[in-house]
């Protein structure tokens, strides 16, 4: 049986409409990607520019990377950034995981309040948090006392205030990521463990923790990345003379932009990207890692 003509023409019109819809969507997609990634691409390209200019191409060179690694100030700031990220990640991963377990597994008075307080550092502006922390460090007398440490041969003086500041915001992110994983976890697995004679600690060690691992690793990588990239809170809580890489870059920009800054930024970009890829790969391997990708 043939389809009546009016339906045929209608079909054709629908076809054209959906095709046009397809094209405009593709165009829109390309533009959106260009908007997001073109600046990054330009940044990376000009880090290889054989001139002081960051807008005129004059040939390819690795010079700026060489210069970057010879600049003592930059090197020190990289060590500072790494040390700060590692220490604050370890502390906030432990605290955040414990907080997630507590919030997900126990009922107590004021739980809702504590619960929403955990989201606060995630939603309030960095600047507000930075000022709060600064006031807190001044009033509490913690000040900017540095932790003097030899880190892979680099002599660092990292103010405790910066570490506490980073832990303060990272803990929330870790707690949120780990909680998402916990919420997905089947509670009967823990019951099964205790049914098979495991005490509370053995149940946690052998069942809960391994099941949570993708969430914990994801949270830790997120914390590491956030710590590495943070500018505002570091800037406000470090006092004079302590530079992380982002703070150092900010200082350099004030003296004029050279491709060296592009090189530094490209390096930071590469590290961040690597971390994201690692976290995605880890979550893939564990089978289901929707919770891990959260936040990136």
């Amino acid at each position, binding site marked *: 049986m043939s389809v009546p003509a009016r339906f045929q023409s209608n079909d054709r019109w629908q076809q054209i409409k959906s095709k046009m819809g397809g094209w405009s969507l593709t165009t829109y997609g390309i533009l959106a990607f260009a908007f997001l990634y073109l600046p990054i691409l330009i940044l990376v390209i000009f880090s290889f520019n054989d001139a002081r200019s960051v807008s005129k191409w004059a040939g390819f060179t690795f010079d700026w990377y060489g210069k970057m690694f010879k600049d003592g100030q930059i090197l020190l700031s990289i060590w500072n950034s790494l040390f700060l990220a590692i220490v604050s990640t370890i502390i906030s991963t432990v605290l955040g995981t414990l907080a997630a377990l507590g919030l997900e597994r126990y009922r107590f008075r004021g739980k809702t309040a504590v619960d929403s307080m955990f989201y606060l550092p995630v939603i309030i502006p960095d600047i507000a948090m930075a000022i709060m922390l600064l006031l807190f460090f001044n009033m509490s007398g913690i000040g900017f006392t540095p932790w003097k440490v030899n880190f892979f041969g680099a002599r660092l003086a990292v103010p405790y205030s910066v570490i506490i500041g980073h832990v303060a915001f990272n803990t929330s992110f870790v707690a949120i990521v780990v909680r998402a994983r916990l919420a997905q976890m*089947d509670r*009967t697995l823990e019951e099964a*463990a205790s049914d098979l004679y*495991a005490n509370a600690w053995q149940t946690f060690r052998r*069942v809960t923790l391994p099941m949570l691992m993708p969430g914990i690793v994801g949270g830790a990588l997120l914390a590491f990345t956030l710590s590495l990239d943070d500018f505002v809170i570091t800037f406000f809580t470090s006092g004079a003379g302590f530079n992380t890489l982002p703070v150092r870059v900010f200082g350099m920009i004030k003296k004029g932009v050279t491709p060296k800054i592009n090189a530094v930024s490209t390096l930071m970009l590469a590290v961040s990207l690597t971390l994201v890829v690692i976290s995605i790969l880890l979550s893939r391997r564990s089978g289901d890692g929707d919770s891990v990708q959260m936040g990136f």
Partner: protein
Amino acid sequence: MTETYAVELQDVVKQFGNVVAVNHVSLQIRDGEFFSLLGPSGCGKTTTLRMIAGFEMPTSGAIYIQGDRQGYRPANKRPVNTVFQNYALFPHMTVAENIAFGMEMRKTPKDEVKRRVAEVLDMVRLGQMANRKPKQLSGGQQQRIALARALVNRPEVLLLDEPLGALDLKLRKAMQIELKALQEDVGITFIYVTHDQEEALTMSDRIAVMNNGVVHQVGDPETIYEHPADRFVADFIGETNFIPVKVVSLAPEIVVELGSGEKVTAGWVEEGLSVGDRAVLSIRPEKMDLLELNEKPSNPSKDTALVNGKVTQLVYVGTDTRHTVALGDGTEVVVRLQNIYIGEEPWEIGEDAIVTWNAAHARILKE
């Protein structure tokens, strides 16, 4: 000396907030018995099982396992193991690691663990799966691993929470037989939670029928089916007819009056009913027969009920045909007649008939 039961519940109550999940339940489960807790969802059967396992603590009452009062003893210190509805296999461990878990927690020597894992895998015929992850197994295989993981610990009592619920019908039937054979083989007491009455009837030595947190009847499958203690049990287990009646006499014989005014005798009456009370006569469709009007016996025994009716519906279901018959007061009953008659004229819709049954099969229950 009183008998020691595998599991004994004494007046156990479990409340969740204002909700009473289990309401004064007392049960005695014998050693080596296949005991089922049967009831619709929300009847308290799973909560009862979880209290025996130690995942929930009773609000009041006492639970004994092998004569040993459990009190607030946590699950990991109880001599029972559970097969969970969703199997709850540890996804990050291999099949062998899953099975070895319980023995490892009890510090069983390594070579013994290895031997027993191999043994139990053999028993459930999944020896070649030892190094797989649970996710790589089919539902039926996972089910058998869950069973193996529990049985390998040689528990005093095995608790099973609807273990076949997630399997398709054919596999479920096969597993029912396998489970029952296994239970007889290992001789361990099984407490089996199910909402599937056929499953319970097929597998159990005894069944406790539960509803709304209360145990309605405990008995072997035949007793539960043939002699239901009350209306809920009669209704929940198998198919049954409820005919509204009025109690006319209780002694020397039980006589009730149907809505049509016809009087019949019955074999049993539920406690608490007295003369003049409204009640229901419960009778299974396969216990009834239909007679042509001219077939009416001239001198029937007093145990034979003969009630006038009219055929209103016929449904052919293969092994038998379901005849719906309207009695004098309009009450419809279903009569199942096996399709074994050759050359006999089938019943037709609208035809007058006499419904007959033996009084011994009729039970008078509270409304």
